[in-house]
């Protein structure tokens, strides 16, 4: 026993693990756009996190102040005030919480369901694969907004249902990416090697195949958060999303619609907020795709 303890000590002291994270980070660092996207995203996330500390929800965000309504941007209200006198900047910063939350949760839902289905379809093949892909095709041909409307109309308006709706609408791309990645990895010799040592299929998928498809799924996820945020904004714009008076960017666009000719700032700033957030995600996602693509290395 003493011998093996020694062995273990030797084993752990030996050559440290150099993770693939380091390598990806190095590649990513070289891409200025990706770094910008990452920086912006971090700023937005931090803003969203500290929002409740800086602003008090009831007074600053939804508190009506009729005397200060419809003010153009000034030193006191950097983005002006809306028709109910609420500071638009405070609402935008707070609104990031909703957009990011819906975006990330929706994508996580889509990722889990989509990857599971796609991986299963890719590995099992045959009739099962056919059925899954055809259902996927049907889902893709329905405009995601329409699908989300269907879900929300059936289940009711709430943030949670919004996440579910956008999530379901975003599943199809994940099914495709997961299936495509699995098809490629499935033919690799190390999968055959795993079979040769007696590993059951389901274990092979989880232990060998999925980790090697991870990079493509991550890229897809990062890019999809952007579209999820836009979908959420669209739904809120239509009144199907997060209920008022919550400062969700899409509903801010909606309420500013009436005043768009004379008080354009009311729609401009929430719009810019959406744009910057989605842009940062796209920049990061593109950078990740390049960094993770083995063919582009060096």
């Amino acid at each position, binding site marked *: 026993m003493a*011998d*093996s*303890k020694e*062995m*273990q000590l*030797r*084993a752990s002291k*030996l*050559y*440290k*693990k*150099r993770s*693939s994270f380091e390598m990806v980070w190095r590649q990513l660092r070289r891409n200025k756009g990706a770094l910008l996207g990452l920086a912006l995203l971090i700023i937005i996330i931090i803003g969203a996190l500290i929002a409740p500390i800086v602003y008090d929800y009831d007074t600053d965000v939804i508190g009506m102040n009729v005397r200060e309504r419809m003010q153009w941007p000034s030193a006191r209200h950097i983005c002006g005030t809306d028709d109910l006198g609420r500071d638009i900047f405070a609402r935008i910063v707070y609104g990031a919480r909703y957009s990011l939350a819906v975006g990330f949760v929706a994508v996580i839902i889509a990722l889990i369901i989509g990857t599971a289905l796609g991986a299963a379809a890719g590995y099992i093949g045959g009739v099962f694969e056919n059925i899954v892909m055809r259902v996927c095709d049907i889902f893709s041909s329905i405009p995601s907004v329409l699908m989300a409307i269907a879900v929300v109309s059936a289940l009711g308006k709430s943030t949670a249902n919004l996440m579910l709706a956008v999530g379901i609408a975003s599943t199809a791309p994940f099914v495709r990416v997961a299936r495509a990645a699995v098809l490629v990895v499935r033919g*690799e*010799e*190390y999968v*055959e*090697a*795993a*079979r*040769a*040592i*007696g*590993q059951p299929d389901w*274990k092979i998928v989880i232990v*060998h195949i999925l*980790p*090697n498809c991870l990079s493509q799924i991550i890229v897809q996820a990062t890019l999809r958060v952007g579209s999820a945020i836009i979908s959420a904004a669209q739904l809120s714009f239509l009144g199907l999303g997060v209920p008022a008076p919550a400062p969700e960017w899409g509903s801010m666009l909606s309420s500013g619609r009436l005043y768009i000719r004379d008080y354009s700032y009311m729609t401009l700033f929430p719009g810019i907020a959406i744009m910057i957030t989605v842009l940062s995600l796209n920049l990061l996602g593109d950078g990740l795709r390049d960094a993770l693509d083995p063919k582009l290395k060096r």
Partner: protein
Amino acid sequence: MADNILEVKHLKKYFKTSRGMLHAVDDINFTLERGKTLGLVGESGCGKSTTGRVILRLLEPTDGEIIFEGKDISKLSKSEMRHMRKDMQIIFQDPFSSLDPKKTVSQIIAEPIIENKIIKGKLAREERVLELMDTVGLAERYINTYPHELDGGRRQRIGIARALAMEPNLIICDEPVSALDVSIQAQILNLLKDLQKKLGLTYIFITHDLSVVNHFSDDIAVMYLGQIVEKAPAEELFDNPVHPYTQALLSAIPIPELGHQRQRVQLKGEITSPIEPPAECRFAKRCLMCNEEVCKKTVPQLIEISPNHFVACPLKQKDLGFNV
């Protein structure tokens, strides 16, 4: 009575394609004695790799018997087969794609041990992994490295260690050195030979490289389009090749010596299709000695023309006085 670890009878593997049945392996028969090496030689498309995989049931045989350690494993269920896997393993050709890029060396080697619950306890397992690494000549310090950080030779050693982890009796070596540099090839071949002596392993050595197979095998079977066309002890095959394909193959090897005048046995054209092959000698279209009368009548059978030397060429069989 020879101790035959493996007996393959009428083994067939066909693939369905849009143009018909592809006869990848077509009625292969051989026996393999324990502790020996059978070289399975042929060019691309001859079915040697497929044969190796079918024997391990990584591909399901279309027909035939695979008698391993006295048991016919061709009909075993998936779970029964999993038990057998411990005794028969494979080393792959490509050291780059046969290792999971996301796993470290120790994880790769430990996997068969974990999967088959051979050793319980993390410490004991790590011990065994280090032991295996030592056996194949991999320095301890690589225990936590990833495959892409190592060169081809070391990667192949990982593959060998993985194959040995379950202490198999039979190892199928599928072109284990073809992807390696010449000087590394020699290192790995020496290692494999060494291991065979130390551990009493039996090998099926699949390759297209005839000089390597001569060095390494006790018996050699030459395959062409899914069939064995000649089988003999290595020295006999090289000294006295009978089948025209074997002769062509041997004469095509470039010899690294001065003043070597090769008598090349010519071949016509290119390999024919393995899809729905006609019932005649499959080599007929390329063989310069082809005699329509004899060669295109039936599928040639393997006949023992001298002790342990089998040939499937009706013309040669006739010449040597065997009734076809």
